């Protein structure tokens, strides 16, 4: 491999990280180059924000400084797919969609379905992005079995491995999941895959009052049915649609769909999964929140959201995305957080129009482990050069 093929150019407003324009954009194409770049940046005390497909850069707070945007899309190799082991190793800049196409040829899938277009594996890990099928397969932390990262000082470190079962050493993959580039750069990832189920069947139930969805989702959870997803699309204070997806062998999905209709007291059956399943609600003018709470909290969540809010909830799991009209967001956010508190809930900002962004507390309360998180950050990035200010507590 030839060295130093990284391309560099000045940052432009199009490169802005949640409103902050980087001084320079650099696109390395190998792990060694990433290590060199970070080492040099540390020597010069330059701040670095890693970016992949840039589909979720607004999910973390604006950086307090961004000298260098480290574009990881040049790390684009699928290193190894062993179909017999249901594992794949791929660099961080590989697009999730491209990886799915590749392993899909072998009838396999990485069971993560966040809807953001153009997302890369490194971005999915760093933002801990998930979609409807988390109900069945879990999230990044359940599927990532190995990781390679580069620390601010250029150290290249691996953890985990290529086998699904492995308890040797600390699981650094967990630490980097959802860390938004504040502990270093994720450069390679190893995943557990699943077989693509051969058949699917979907039950769609229209609810005149969306708040009926909570008890239905719990009833589904408590049944022996094994849906891949139970998604509610709703408007606060209004109607909703519950979409229940079954994916398995043909005999099973038709039997389960029938049972689901019976259990819910209605619903129309479809043969295909709707294309918009799991789509995040709202648009660029709304404030998008990710809410997490114990599953029984859904009814209270719906009640706490201001009128006009559009919601897409993974109803069985206790995660929902809410698009709040921007004008109402600053007033509503504290109330939403208060309503979520009894459900061990949290509300995190994923997107806000520039005009209101500064009025909103991005992460909300973090709990009593914040000091410990700060100590972790200090050990991994003592100079505070990696994505400074983007994380909880200003980390």
């Amino acid at each position, binding site marked *: 491999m030839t060295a130093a093929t990284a391309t560099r150019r000045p940052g432009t407003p199009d490169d802005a990280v949640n409103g902050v324009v980087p001084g320079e954009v650099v696109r390395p194409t190998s792990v060694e180059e990433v290590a060199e770049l970070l080492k040099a940046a540390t020597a010069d005390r330059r701040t670095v924000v890693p970016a992949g497909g840039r589909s979720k850069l607004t999910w973390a707070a*604006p950086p307090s400084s961004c000298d260098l945007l480290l574009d990881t899309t040049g790390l684009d190799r699928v290193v190894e797919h062993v179909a*017999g*082991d249901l594992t794949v190793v791929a660099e961080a800049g590989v697009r999730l969609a491209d990886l799915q196409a590749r392993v899909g040829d072998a009838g396999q899938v990485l069971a993560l379905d966040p809807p953001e277009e153009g997302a890369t594996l490194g971005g999915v890990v760093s933002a*801990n992005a998930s979609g409807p099928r988390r109900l069945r397969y879990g999230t990044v*932390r*359940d599927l990532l079995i190995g990781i390679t990262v580069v620390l601010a000082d250029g*150290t*290249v*470190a*691996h*953890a985990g*491995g*290529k*086998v*699904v079962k*492995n*308890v*040797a*050493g*600390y*699981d*650094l*993959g*967990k*630490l980097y999941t*959802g860390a938004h580039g504040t*502990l270093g750069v994720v450069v390679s990832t190893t995943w557990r895959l*699943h*077989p693509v189920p*051969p058949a699917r069947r979907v039950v769609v139930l229209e609810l005149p009052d969306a708040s009926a969805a909570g008890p239905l989702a719990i009833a589904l*959870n*408590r*049944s*022996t049915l094994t849906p891949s997803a139970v998604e509610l699309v709703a408007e606060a204070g209004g109607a909703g649609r519950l979409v229940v997806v079954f994916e398995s062998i043909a005999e*099973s999905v038709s*039997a*389960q769909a029938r049972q689901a209709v019976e259990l819910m007291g209605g619903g129309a059956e479809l043969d295909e999964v709707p294309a918009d399943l799991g789509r995040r609600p709202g648009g660029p003018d709304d404030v998008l929140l990710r809410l997490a709470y*114990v*599953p029984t*909290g859904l009814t209270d969540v719906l009640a706490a959201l201001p009128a006009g809010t559009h919601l897409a909830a993974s109803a069985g799991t*206790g*995660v929902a995305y809410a698009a709040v009209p921007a004008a109402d967001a600053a007033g509503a956010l504290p109330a939403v957080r208060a309503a979520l508190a009894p*459900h061990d809930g949290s509300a995190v900002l994923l997107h806000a129009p520039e005009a209101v962004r500064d009025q909103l507390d991005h*992460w*909300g309360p973090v*709990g*009593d*482990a*914040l*000091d*410990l998180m700060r100590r*972790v950050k200090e*050990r991994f990035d*003592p100079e*505070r050069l990696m994505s*400074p*200010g983007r*994380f909880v*507590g*200003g980390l």
Partner: protein
Amino acid sequence: MTALAETPVSSRTADLAAGLRAAVGAERVLTDRVQTRTYECDGLANFKVTPAIVVLAESRQHVVDCVRLCSEAGVPFVARGSGTGLSGGALPSADGVLLVLSRLRRLGPVDADNAQVTVEPGVINLWVTRDAAPHDLLYAPDPSSQLVCSIGGNVAENAGGAHCLKYGFTVNHVLGAEVVLPDGEVVHLGGRAPEHPGYDLLGAFIGSEGTLGVATELTLRLIRVPEEVQTMLVGYHSVEDAAGTVSDIIAAGIVPAAVEMMDALAIEAAEAAVSCGYPEGATAVLVIELDGPKAEVEAQFAQVEEIAGTRNAFEVRIAADADERALMWKGRKSAFAAVGRISPSYYVQDGVIPRTKLPEVLAEMKRMADAKGLRVANVFHAGDGNLHPLVLFDDAVEGQAHEAEELAGDILEQCITSGGSITGEHGVGQEKRMKMAKQFTPEDLDTMQLVRCAFDPDGVANPGKVFPTPRLCGERPGVRTGEHPVQAAGLGEVF
């Protein structure tokens, strides 16, 4: 550390013992060697160290008091659950405190609608499923030691079990933990909800083998009892055919709840111990279990049966009811202990290989064993490539114990070479820490140490375990200990 050496160990621990008695009550502090010797080892009996002090904690406050006093005195402490660990993780320090958590055994009420329950760390694994059962729920991680091992120990080891293949390990079933950090501070990692803002420190804590702090409460995820469970026992005349069956099942897109394999020697042992009635003359058996919705299990079970046939299975037995299923599992779950029936001593190994390498690694293992004139019984979680070779030896034969240990080590290196791991579920502990340097680079290990230093800068929590060389958490150049300017300016917390 040097400062500690100035005070003689005995007087230092004597002072500490006095402090502990005052804090947690004299009846919970043991220093009499006859009593403390009870705790000299865990399930790996070839390492033995009698601890200076044993504390039998009964509440979180006892844990906090004990840990804080240890930290102030600079005395190491080792947490202990049920002591069934197989890597020496709960091996005490001679000049330290063994903190026993088995009296912290309260279970909270099952929250059936949210499928979760909060328990104390000394609670026995099986009790969780027992409490969940009336709600048609169960706790999925099922180590073979589940009758006796503790949830705290499971969390510390990220314990697995026969049903990991489909349901994952302990880390996939713990939602939250209350942890007493090595300086006595209490933090809550994760919680009851599925996500929380901030680093996933819960994920880092699980599997940290007691080196990052002491769990005093755990919130566990429960799963719905499946509608249907079917189990079969399949006999083969060759290990290759058994391994081939596993590959074919996976290739067919079936994810069984469990696929366990035993070889001839392991079968012989189980038969001698529990008369499980496995197919006579089998060179290998598989225990295959499918669970889920009835229609799915029935169709896939028939498919698995067919696959076994094409792989020359000479006997396929299907459990007709729960009793028959239990008998099939009895042979498998008693296999470790059963080996004692056919060999005076044995060494339990735990390694992982990519599933597709199974036949070649097994052949290589046999070659290595033959070269040493030793026998290896194999019991393993075949579905996820987690091997448990049992190296048989006789202490009475001069040098054989050493040979066995060497063979067990060689097998691990074979696992690493094949792209696997030195441990799939028993942990690194005391036993395998030197092997960590073979699986990981110095940079990898140093990076893991950063986590350690953030949680336990003084290195008092289970020191000397997991990592090959103990390291001090010296201030690295540039580490800020005070407030960062951004924070000081009041800007830090607003984001």
